[in-house]
């Protein structure tokens, strides 16, 4: 295993901090020449990873995106940047783009205003009818999907303003290896069972626009077994190895057998996942992204006694994150509206029974071939997962 380079160390720091990295006020943007090896339909600015020659090239260098501006960012004093971060973080929740505006990134501020206005609009269009009709069953699918997606755009837009105010610092998206094999360990703690653990192995293959994946996890003396098969087709920017802007349509089958609970569930899922590298909105947002999921599922639950049940599942999720410097990986935080997963939903006080789980995930390349992964999910249960992934060519 190779020793970490300075860039990798910065990536690890960023992963640990899970926060935008402040960039020196005088730093010039890194401009990387476009890669000639970009697959058809992929982002036109895919670049080789200069810092990591053994790693597949990042798929979208922010500096070279279509609307990126080659000019250096405005010079900002440390005091002004600190004020911008504070303004973006607090009043910025209600005033979109405030932080970006204070550091002179007016175009980013306007784009964030538009993004958050779109999010707020979706929240209102989706959520208000649900409130007025008190959760009419007829409005659940469009209403909740719009409300979750709108919340994602609104909140990630807020976070992106803080990111822009801090000077950004994220790197370009990373390209995945064609074949990835992974192992992980999950610590699962819920109020009823206490702590349990799972050891999992998984594999994922990418070819063209297609991705196929499988995972098997078992633990607690094999009392808890989880298996998952998924397939995805990238319908926008059809390069399945890219981690930049794209839209996937995915289908999955997820099965969990829990001998402690005498319960077996099998869930079929069909969903779309879209990710937008915010560099496509403005250079000042390069290195950050927003991700939305929407879909539906059908779950069969089999008990020790009685008939099996069939119930619908609404898939709604949003995430915001940052690509680590030098295409080392990414860190994201997310909200998942589902409550049928091992995490369940948050015990959210008066709102209990309405919210799903929140969490964070990170993947950091420690060598060109090996990637460390970690995830935290908080709902009714708490899950902490750490793992490693090996990329194969």
């Amino acid at each position, binding site marked *: 295993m190779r020793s970490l380079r300075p860039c990798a160390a910065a990536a690890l720091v960023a992963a640990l901090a899970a926060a935008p990295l402040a960039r020196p006020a005088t730093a010039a943007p890194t401009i990387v020449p476009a890669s000639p090896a970009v697959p058809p339909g992929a982002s036109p600015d895919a670049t080789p990873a200069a810092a990591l020659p053994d790693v597949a090239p990042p798929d979208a260098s922010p500096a070279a995106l279509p609307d990126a501006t080659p000019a250096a960012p405005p010079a900002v004093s440390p005091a002004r940047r600190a004020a911008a971060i504070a303004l973006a973080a607090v009043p910025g929740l209600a005033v979109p783009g405030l932080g970006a505006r204070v550091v002179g990134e007016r175009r980013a501020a306007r784009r964030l205003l538009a993004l958050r206005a779109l999010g707020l609009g979706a929240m209102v269009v989706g959520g208000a009818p649900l409130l007025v009709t*008190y959760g009419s069953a007829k409005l659940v699918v469009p209403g909740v999907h719009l409300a979750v997606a709108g919340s994602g755009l609104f909140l990630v837009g807020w976070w992106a303003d803080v990111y822009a105010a801090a000077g950004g610092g994220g790197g370009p998206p990373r390209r995945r290896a064609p074949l990835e094999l992974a192992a992980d360990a999950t610590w699962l703690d819920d109020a009823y069972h206490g702590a349990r653990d799972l050891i999992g192995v998984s594999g994922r293959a990418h070819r063209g626009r297609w991705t196929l994946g499988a995972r098997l996890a078992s633990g607690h003396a094999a009392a808890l077994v989880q298996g998952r098969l998924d397939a995805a087709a990238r319908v926008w920017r059809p390069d399945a190895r890219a981690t930049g802007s794209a839209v996937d349509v995915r289908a999955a089958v997820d099965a969990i057998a829990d001998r402690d609970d005498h319960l077996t569930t099998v869930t079929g899922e069909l969903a779309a996942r879209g990710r937008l590298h915010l560099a496509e909105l403005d250079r000042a947002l390069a290195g950050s992204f927003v991700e939305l999921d929407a879909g539906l599922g059908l779950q069969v639950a089999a*008990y*020790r006694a009685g008939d099996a049940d069939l119930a619908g599942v609404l898939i709604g999720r949003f995430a915001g994150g940052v690509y680590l410097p030098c295409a080392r990986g990414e860190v994201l935080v997310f909200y998942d509206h589902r409550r049928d997963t091992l995490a*369940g939903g948050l015990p959210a006080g008066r709102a209990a*029974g309405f919210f799903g789980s929140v969490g964070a995930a990170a993947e950091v390349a420690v060598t060109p071939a090996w990637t460390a992964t970690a995830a935290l999910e908080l709902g009714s249960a708490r899950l902490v997962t750490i793992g490693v992934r090996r990329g194969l060519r």
Partner: protein
Amino acid sequence: MRAAALALAAALVGCARPGEQRALDDALVGIADDAGLHVVITDRLGAVRALTPGRLELWAAAPAIEVTVDVATGGAGRWLITVNNALPDAELREGGAPLGVAVPAPRPTVLVRDVDLSPGRHVLTIGPADTTGPLRIAAMADIQTGLPTVDDVFAAIATTNPRFVVCMGDLTERGQLDEYALFERQLATLPVPLYTTLGNHELWAEAARYQGRYGPASYQFTFHDVAFTFADSGDAGLDPIVEEAVGDLLATAADRQSLFLTHFPPVDPVGIRDGAFRSRRDAQRLIGTLATTGVDLALYGHIHTYAEFEHAGIPAFVSGGGGARPERWDGIGRHFLVIDLAPGLPPIVGVRRVD
């Protein structure tokens, strides 16, 4: 930012069992010690509302309750015993014999007796003479903002002649004292008692307000050989203490007709809406318990509509038509259930609209 994230995580971890204290407090309901009397309601089937010299006031959470009264020398003498929420034909007895002198009561569900208590232990029972035969009950939930007009619902229920009413919670909108007072004034319209658990709206204020008035949130009583098991799901789930206790209670009722009642449906019949337990896996574990313990009927509230469905093959109903803001376009509005129970027959459930 990292510190804030850690604080948030700590806060979330800290409230992983929001119902734990309430479950522990349930065990202390129905016990009082004052004025020379030590009072214990067996199986916590009620609340001791007042215990002052010469006056003992109870709220019954079941058609028949047993109260053990240990009288110290200083507590001996005349006592006015008031039992609220009693069956109209209930009687206060000791050793099978009626006890005390009847005192006029403000409504048929209030029993008042003037009793002479001697020092020592007295095991009192409050209940009706009948213990077997067919039984008709009504079921409802989710009154909330409908409190000012819930007397309409109670009046409609009265016309169906139920033996008593069971309620799946959300008596109030915010758990305020004036709401509880109004609820009890409205109960004057109802000529039969109402046995309930709490809903999430009772938790907008201290749960002790509920438990001090109506007794435990999780409990079981048996009447006419039918077991009624109430569970506290006010936080969109059962605390492990409640889940284990309810599992044990349901197991004891496996050989008789068994009804399970809680506020949140474990799984929303409209699954994608998920107006249900905060963890579907916890919900499914509970449904598995209902199936293995032979529950015959499950009754829920929370969703302000009417739904008839099954889980694990058990007939289940959501009836949230007590007057809270209704779900639109479901064509039901205010309503309640009428349930006929007879030995050896499955429950027969009908729905009655109020408006």
